[in-house]
């Protein structure tokens, strides 16, 4: 659990981060979203003490971070930045091994861990271990950056625009992968982005920042349903609220049982798809309902246009 209390950082006369208080629960992904210059990166960098707060308190699992030597603190926290920041003179395997080596792990344990992480990030160890960063594609470099951050199995991972340098198609794949990895590892993640879609897609909670202050901190549903500030509504896109709501619900969760009296629907969506995708499919096919299929491809229920519309209504 990460707790920020009244955290403020001045650069000269200007408060870049102004009296921010928020709590990130264990195993949650909190996304800090805001325009450039809103103070979101500075806020993130204060958690691992790359920037020291002017005032306020930051604690991790109840322990004040300022009481831990900065380099010791950072070895326990994963860190991923935009443009990956890989060491150009070291191989992929050496890059990933950075923190375990700093922690003095034995060599065979490091080697095992590196292979494990490469597999987790869908990079073949045989092919990639010995390569240098400049030999990789942008998406591969980004995944190596994530693997490096996870190397020592940190409870907390800080990510500063981790997908900023990727093109849109690779980015959405990387976002899905991150979600899956987090679900598997149960790490607490704080991610900074300027992309509201990314925030809604990834965040268990979202903090909207503007001019150093957090305008609202809450679940994506809260953001749309009860914006605390007109600026939040503007940032989340008031006109798209309904679609954002639909994007938050999985078709499998909204599925209703089949009605035996009617014939089964002719089109289907996978259970993992969002209601937003289901709506698009309904509009496209002109049908009134869709079958929802499980992982094995067998229908598990159905969604109707009426139920989709109900989910999109203002709460």
């Amino acid at each position, binding site marked *: 659990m990460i707790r920020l209390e009244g955290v403020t950082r001045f650069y000269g006369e200007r408060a870049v981060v102004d009296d921010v208080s928020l709590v990130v629960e264990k195993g949650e992904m909190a996304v800090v979203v805001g325009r450039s210059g809103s103070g979101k990166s500075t806020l993130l960098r204060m958690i691992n003490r*790359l920037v020291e707060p002017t005032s306020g308190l930051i604690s991790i699992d109840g322990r004040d971070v300022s009481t831990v030597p900065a380099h010791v603190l*950072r*070895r326990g926290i994963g*860190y991923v*930045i935009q443009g990956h920041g890989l060491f150009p003179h070291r*191989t992929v395997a050496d890059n990933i091994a*950075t923190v375990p080596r*700093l922690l003095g792990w034995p060599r065979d344990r490091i080697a095992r861990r590196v292979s494990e992480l490469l597999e987790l990030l869908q990079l073949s160890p045989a092919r990639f271990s010995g390569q240098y960063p400049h030999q990789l594609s942008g998406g591969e470099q980004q995944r190596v950056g994530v693997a*490096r951050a996870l190397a020592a199995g940190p409870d907390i991972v800080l990510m500063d625009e981790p997908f900023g340098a990727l093109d849109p198609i690779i980015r959405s794949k990387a976002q899905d992968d991150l979600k899956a990895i987090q679900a598997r590892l149960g790490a607490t993640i704080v991610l900074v982005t300027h992309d509201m879609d990314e925030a809604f897609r990834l965040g268990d909670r979202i903090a909207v920042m503007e001019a150093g202050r957090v305008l609202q901190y809450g679940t994506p549903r809260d953001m749309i349903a009860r914006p605390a500030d007109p600026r939040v509504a503007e940032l989340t896109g008031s006109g798209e609220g309904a679609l954002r709501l639909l994007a938050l619900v999985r078709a499998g969760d909204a599925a209703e049982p089949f009605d035996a009296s009617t014939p089964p629907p002719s089109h289907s969506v996978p259970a993992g798809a969002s209601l937003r995708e289901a709506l698009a499919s309904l509009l496209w096919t002109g049908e009134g309902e869709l079958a929802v299929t499980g992982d094995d491809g067998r229908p598990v229920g159905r969604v109707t246009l009426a139920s989709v519309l109900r989910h999109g209504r203002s709460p």
Partner: protein
Amino acid sequence: MAPPAKAVIGGQGAGRPSTARGRAAWPADRLGSLLAAVGFAAAVLLPFMIVKANRIASGQPHGLADSLSRAGAAELAALLAVVAGVAMLVRAPTVRLAAALAGLAGLAAAVSHAASRFTPPGDSFARVSPGAGAWLMTAVLALLATDALARLRLFPGARVAALALAIAACWLAFRFGLFDQLSVMREYANRADVFAREARWHLVLAGGSCAVAVLIGLPLGILCHRAPRLRAGTLQGLNIVQTIPSIALFGMLMVPLGLLARSFPVLSQFGVAGIGGAPAFVALVLYALLPVTANTVAGLAQAPAAAVDAARGMGMTDGQVLREVELPLAVPVILTGIRIVLVQNIGLATVAALIGGGGFGTFVFQGLGQTAIDLVLLGAAPTVALAFCASVLLDAAAEAFEGPGS
């Protein structure tokens, strides 16, 4: 290891592929044609050998046909014609290199042969030296060889091996007295022991001052990198030192070092004095400081900001960031600085002889005083050769370190 980004030896122009293919009118290699033309003009128009009655008398020029027996002249002419043909028409760098080396060997044999012919038996006053034509042909063939080497794009290790082979070949030529009849070697024979001493001292002056400059400049550069406020002042100060002419700097150091030696007589036991080796060494160190420090600062600064941020963010201490990220990435740039310094100091050390600092400059200034140009050559030629070797070695080292990450 990744293929080298560039393959330039000692800073000569890289082998630009000839643009001849597109020009039907002149289908030959342009550089090769130019070199062949210059070589031909040198062979026909300029004296091949100069013969003097004694070391300071004015010389008698002899053309190529005069200098050799009829058969010898014909053989050399045939060999050089083949080399010229290869230079103009063959594109394969290995063939061009082989032709250039064969030409050089033939020329060396011809010069050696001619020198024996012109030396009267038992005469120890006559001086025979290569004329402008022989020198120019040597230069043309050397250029052809360097160009071929550059086109070969050798790996750093192979370039060092090529240099070692060239040194071995020269050593064998001198060892078996190929050039003993030439005037430069006559001068050498009279001073063999002094030559060895001055050569050692020249190396100590240039190499030692370079080493001391690295010992001071590297930490200074790291300090400047860490404390930007220090940077501007330090680099400007060193820049000013760099602009002082070498003789002026030697002169400026005479007074303080002389005073120091007089106030603390112990120091003079270690060679500290107003003139001689000490001021020369100190001046060379001062000249070397700017390139070493400035390149250290530039090298450290070029580490990608994201990599340094990531290194800190993962929990490296300042020292670890320096040792594991910034310095390894800076090594090629620092080595380039050391190369500049070593080559510069090998040349500058010659001037040290003016204030009694010793080194190859001793022969240069003695020769100038006696108007004995062969003696000047005895000092100048090894200086140039030394600078060339240092440049090739450090260039190869810098490129080897650049290897994997780039």
